[in-house]
């Protein structure tokens, strides 16, 4: 039964990928291309490309898209649910514990240490994205000549609009996409 197989594969992948995003890709590739031969390698490369272009969480998108390609719309639904279910159970338990115990001094200590670390990780993600946007090959060591000027201008404009007018990030991202179509 293909639906059950899809469900259990993406359930396992959802359970074992911490950090989400592209971390799940090698696991999906092994299951879908090597073990079950549902997709060929070029087809899987298309999945990776499309998932990067469409909005939504990368892990959920890849599960859904592989599911649709293998088992139609129902396959997509089953794969998406399988991928989300482990998170749902685990995070719900943690949420319950957090709201129950967050006033304990030990928990307060843990959280006060985690907050700066989370901001640091956000900053790191932001910097990596910035480098990727400015230098297409994603390396700072690339010379200043290889810099992508339109991207820099779009970044500066977006940043100023966000700081000055507290505009919705969604509007800014869509605006940046439109600007990219015209200027890049």
């Amino acid at each position, binding site marked *: 039964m293909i639906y059950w197989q899809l469900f259990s594969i993406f359930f396992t992948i959802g359970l074992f990928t911490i950090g989400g995003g592209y971390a799940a890709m090698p696991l999906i590739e092994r299951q879908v291309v090597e073990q079950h031969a549902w997709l060929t390698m070029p087809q899987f490369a298309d999945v990776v490309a499309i998932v990067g272009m469409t909005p939504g969480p990368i892990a959920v998108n890849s599960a*859904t898209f592989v599911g649709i390609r293998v088992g139609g719309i129902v396959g997509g639904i089953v794969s998406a649910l399988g*991928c989300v279910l482990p998170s749902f159970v685990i*995070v719900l338990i943690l949420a319950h514990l957090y709201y129950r115990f967050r006033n304990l001094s030990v928990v307060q*200590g843990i959280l006060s240490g985690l907050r700066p670390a989370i901001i640091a990780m956000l900053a790191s993600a932001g910097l990596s994205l910035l480098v990727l946007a400015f230098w297409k090959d994603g390396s700072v060591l690339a010379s200043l000549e290889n810099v992508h000027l339109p991207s*820099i201008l779009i*970044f500066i404009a977006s940043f100023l609009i*966000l700081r000055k007018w507290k505009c919705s990030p*969604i509007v800014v991202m869509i605006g940046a996409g439109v600007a990219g179509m015209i200027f890049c």
Partner: protein
Amino acid sequence: MGSTEEKKKGRQRGTYWKLFSATFLLSACTFGGGFVIVPLMRKKFVEQLGWIEEQEMLDLIAIARSSPGSLAVNAAILAGYRVAGWLGSVVTVLGTVLPSLLILSAVSFFYTLLRDNPIVDRAMTGMQAGVAAVICDVVLTMGIGVVKENRVLPVLLMGVSFVAVQFFDGNVFAVLAICALVGVIDGAVRKKKGGREE
């Protein structure tokens, strides 16, 4: 009695609908995956709806980042639970997953067109710069918040974590664990000090 109960039900339904539409919109507009969800959720749940506090938001992101699965999905589960319990989580998960299903079902019919399209490629390039700006903006806002606490330790933790993750490929979980430990020790020391002064 009946009318107040009905009102309560109506209000709850309103909350579920707001949760669903908020997460649906966020998920449909999350390009670039991962941490982009943080500025988007902060804007919606902290600034616009006022359902979650600033510090609490950071706690929820820390929990989401430490759990298996996608950051966006986990954050949605937590926000849903915060606002309306486990049923709220069911609603926010569906709101997060549904756009993926709809968009990819549509895309699967003409994806070769999308893949080889230069205009789409240019839009993605522009959007990448926009996403970077969105993340830098929220980092600046939240970073200023930490600096304004006027304590050395959180700023130090922030700086060291950044360097460890960005330049030394530090393991994310090791960094989180060390920061949690430092936080516990700091809390205990301050409590002891505070107790003596009293």
